[in-house]
């Protein structure tokens, strides 16, 4: 539960750059959201432009298809290696497997029983399966490497081409530079730590402070846009034997094909973690307001919590 005690530091770090965002004011219409005697209505701002909204939803579908079809592809050989080669007789640093009675996940020397979820689970017909990832997490549901590859390698184009278009737009429109790039003051460890603590207490920015992304949002959106997504695409391309002939440096960059495959999997796990936290934050921060802002673009600044200055 958020503490009702006013926190004098709550907005201090953000006031520093407040004047830089005045230009946003031009696009702001102060529309009262409620009529009556309630608290003063909070202004609603135009937060997400059309390309952002389109790409967000399109990419949400594409990334989920990539994730689920990728898990099925992993099921064909649920072992990961470092280096140039790696097959059953070589040492795997990660393995999802099964004993005669239970499913297991092994990472390095640590083995975790995962019966019911990984390595041993019951399929929709009630049969025990010892595949790595369960049917509810994969595309298609029943084992098919070829069908999963069809999905994965076709949707890869839908990830890459619109992704590059969005990169170009977000740089050309200065969305990245203006809305996503953290300012120097925000990158101070104290400021970041303060935001981490506020998030952990579920005390999200309100009022004027919610007008811009906070530093944790900026870093995670930048991390996905310019970190995880390109890493996923490049490690994916590094696994292509034909592209290895075209761009051998890609292999060297990642330390070999099996290292690229491991990094592809780790980046996928990072992407899945981002999605989980992102959806959780939307649910906690006010799902209707957040969803509306990503559908219509309009975002109502959250009202200050009781006892806080607006």
């Amino acid at each position, binding site marked *: 539960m958020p503490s009702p005690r006013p926190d004098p530091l709550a907005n201090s770090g953000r006031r520093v750059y407040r004047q830089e965002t005045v230009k946003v004011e031009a696009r702001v219409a102060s529309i009262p959201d409620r009529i009556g005697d309630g608290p003063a209505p909070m202004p609603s701002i135009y937060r997400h432009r059309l390309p952002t909204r389109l790409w967000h939803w399109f990419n949400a579908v594409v990334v989920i298809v990539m994730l689920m079809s990728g898990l099925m592809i992993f099921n064909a050989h649920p072992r990961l290696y470092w280096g140039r080669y790696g097959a059953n007789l070589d040492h795997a640093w990660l393995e999802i497997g099964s004993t005669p009675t239970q499913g297991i996940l092994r990472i390095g020397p640590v083995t975790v029983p995962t019966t019911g979820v990984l390595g041993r689970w019951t399929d929709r017909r009630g049969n025990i399966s010892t595949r790595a990832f369960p049917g509810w997490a994969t595309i298609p549901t029943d084992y098919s490497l070829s069908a999963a590859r*069809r999905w994965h390698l076709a949707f890869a184009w839908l990830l890459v081409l619109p992704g590059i278009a969005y990169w170009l737009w977000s740089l050309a429109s200065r969305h990245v530079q203006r809305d996503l790039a953290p300012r120097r003051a925000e990158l101070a460890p104290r400021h970041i730590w303060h935001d981490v603590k506020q998030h952990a207490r579920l005390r999200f920015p309100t009022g004027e402070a919610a007008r811009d992304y906070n530093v944790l949002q900026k870093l995670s959106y930048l991390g996905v846009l310019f970190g995880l997504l390109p890493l996923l695409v490049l490690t994916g391309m590094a696994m292509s034997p034909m592209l290895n002939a075209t761009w051998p440096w890609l292999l060297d960059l990642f330390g070999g094909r099996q290292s690229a495959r491991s990094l592809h999997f780790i980046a996928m796990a990072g992407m899945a973690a981002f999605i989980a936290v992102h959806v959780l934050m939307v649910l906690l921060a006010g799902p209707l307001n957040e969803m509306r802002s990503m559908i219509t673009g309009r975002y109502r600044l959250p009202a200050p919590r009781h006892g806080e200055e607006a």
Partner: protein
Amino acid sequence: MISRRALVGFGASAGGLLLSGCDRLTASPSFREALQGGEALSMRAQRLLTDRGALAPEFDAAQRSPVFRANGTRRPASADYAAHAANGFADWRLRVDGLVARPLRVSMAQIGTMPARTQITRHDCVEGWSAIGQWTGVPLKLLLDQAGVRPAARYIVFHCADDYGPVRYYESIDLVDAFHPQTILAWGLNGRRLPVENGAPLRLRVERMLGYKHAKYVERVEAVASLAAIGGGQGGYWEDSNDYEWYAGI
């Protein structure tokens, strides 16, 4: 006001719908055709970016896998093959025919006298694993040039001695890959005669493609104008039986 619980419930049912929807889409022929468009696009893009002679990476002897994993057929079941294996493939004949000017029948001894290429390359199974080994064999180009591929030929089909249910294994590649300098019919692995489990006496190495293109136990090389009459028409055993991609460059 919609509650969070309702929203989560909506999300979960939308997820369920997505899942069953995906399975229904996978089964739909027109959607499958659309997905196959991705393969066509990948092939075109990769061919555009890749010089037709660009070489697959080659490795040092020290970078080889300690054990080169054998996969697929470990030993063809036919009595005929067993007899050939028993006398060291001395009577094995490789046929080169189809759309060629001079059909060939060559023995392993003759192949052994032809120029050989040795290359240490990585084998990438479609399942995801890789193994690095040293292959020695005759460049396919030499055999095709000797036979004289006719201008009408577009593909090279490999007919194999191993059975997969009622059919024998077969694969095909186009002429770009058939005449590639690293495309060889290998008779040696890691300095020794090719073991039976790795495809003795001859296996295709087509280094810029996934493992299932590397046909083992090759007994006939056929030049054809079209793949329509080969097996189910998709160009290979796994392509026909399980809808794997014919273009296996990624």
